[in-house]
């Protein structure tokens, strides 16, 4: 395996409704910042891959427009995944492992505010047995939360505590969207959106973009921050049928974590893509994270959840945490699909 490093990370501030800038407007400064900070001249970057969803833009092939942000002349080698940018990073990592290129620009973007995100997410479902029921993102998450509550694996109070902790930590994250000091008792007095989920259990709707530059070989170590190495990365999937899964556990996260080598060294912290409060303990259990492991130093997806790049942002935030010298080794996780259907685990380590 080649050593592949995260050379740089850049992201917008996440906001509820970015009405002043298009996706391309947001991408131009962020991709430029990531490239400049990587120290790799733009013409030398061997591959570009990004993640986004045309369903959010409401237009087929909308992702092609993102290439406008790059200035694709002279021609570039470019690819796209209709998934979170974390999976675009995986594709770029594979391409680097194959020896085809030594560097890659990876980004993801989402402007969920343009539609009704909760209902747009219905379009990712199987169009025969689930889609026609009108299932929405919050209702599906609520089915999972109820299963956990019934199993005695969590309480509504603990769910509120998770939201409070993430949003308190996010006060130190200048790009986070929902931050502050909240009181559990006051949150529990709020009404349900879809029982048993209240507003604080759900992620904010966020507009924003993030970008990472990967480097291998001679491309490593040219940037303005210390390289952070990807020691393992793997992604796995569970059935799309919610009723054929035990929603209180995440076998795909567990398997991805094992394949990525999470416990081949000490886990000092984890950036987990848990959009809903009750999903954090499911992931901690699946990854075998013990008490005392720092969870989400960035505030996680409950503080900002830019659809289609919140997972890539977890990887970028984890790399930044290590590059800043605050930890030596940690993990980042990304999820996709309803009720943690598909999961990616990335093990990161400093020099």
């Amino acid at each position, binding site marked *: 395996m080649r050593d592949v490093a995260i050379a740089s990370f850049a992201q917008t501030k996440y906001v509820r409704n970015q009405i002043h800038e298009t996706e391309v407007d947001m991408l131009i400064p962020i991709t430029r910042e990531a490239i400049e900070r990587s120290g790799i001249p733009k013409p030398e970057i061997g591959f570009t891959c990004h993640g986004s969803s045309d369903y959010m833009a409401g237009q087929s092939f909308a992702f092609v427009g993102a290439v406008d942000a790059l200035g694709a002349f002279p021609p570039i080698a470019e690819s796209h995944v209709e998934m979170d940018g974390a999976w675009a990073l995986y594709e770029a990592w594979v391409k680097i492992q194959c020896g085809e290129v030594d560097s890659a620009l990876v980004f993801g973007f989402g402007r969920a505010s343009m539609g009704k995100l909760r209902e747009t997410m219905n379009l990712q479902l199987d169009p025969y047995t689930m889609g026609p029921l*009108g299932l929405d993102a919050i209702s599906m998450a609520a089915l999972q939360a109820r299963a956990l509550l019934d199993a005695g694996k969590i309480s509504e109070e603990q769910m509120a505590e998770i939201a409070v902790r993430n949003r308190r930590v996010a006060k130190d994250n200048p790009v986070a969207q929902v931050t502050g000091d909240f009181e559990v008792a006051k949150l529990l007095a709020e009404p349900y959106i879809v029982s048993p989920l209240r507003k604080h259990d759900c992620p904010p709707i966020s507009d924003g973009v993030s970008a990472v530059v990967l480097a291998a070989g001679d491309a490593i170590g040219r940037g303005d921050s210390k390289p952070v190495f990807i020691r393992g990365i793997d992604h796995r999937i569970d059935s799309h049928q*919610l009723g054929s899964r035990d929603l209180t556990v995440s076998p795909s996260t567990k398997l991805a974590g094992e394949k990525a080598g999470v416990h081949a060294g000490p886990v000092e912290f984890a950036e987990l893509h848990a959009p809903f409060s009750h999903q954090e303990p499911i992931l901690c259990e699946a990854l075998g994270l013990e008490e005392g492991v720092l969870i989400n130093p960035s505030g996680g997806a409950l503080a900002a959840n830019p659809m289609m790049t919140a997972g890539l942002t977890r990887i970028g935030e984890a790399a930044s945490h290590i590059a800043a010298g605050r930890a030596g080794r940690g993990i980042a996780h990304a999820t996709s699909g309803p009720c943690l259907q598909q999961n990616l685990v990335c093990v990161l380590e400093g020099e």
Partner: protein
Amino acid sequence: MADELLSAPHVLEYDYRRSLGDTLSRFFTGLRDREILGVKTKAGRVLVPPAEYDPETGEATTEDWSAVGPEGVVKSWAWVAEPLGRHPLDRPFAFALIQLDGADTALTHVVDTGDESAMQTGMRVTAKWADETVGAIRDIVAFVPTPGGGSA
């Protein structure tokens, strides 16, 4: 005649039909006939909705089909107090995972009780059929509490 404008209707849509394939065709044909069918995996588990492959092992499922339900047990539920436009009912209802009698997995569907206080994990429910069935998941309008059904 010269001032007569010609016109033609224009409907902008993706006008295509999907083929369901062998497995889901059989399931939806069953629903049209007011019967809920499951398929057995090689390990003997009955999957409802049926799948071509066992999600546990990836092995092809068998040709062994069986009727399940129409009664079953609510395994989990989510109460929608304020229905949205795409939702199947225009009054408060529950989305639920329902394990039908004779099945080993749960069907995602809708439970119509009118009030959240009537919902309970483990409650028994029965399929309520549409007046006209067409071979679609909404041939079952909703599941309703089984009279005298109690809880599992």
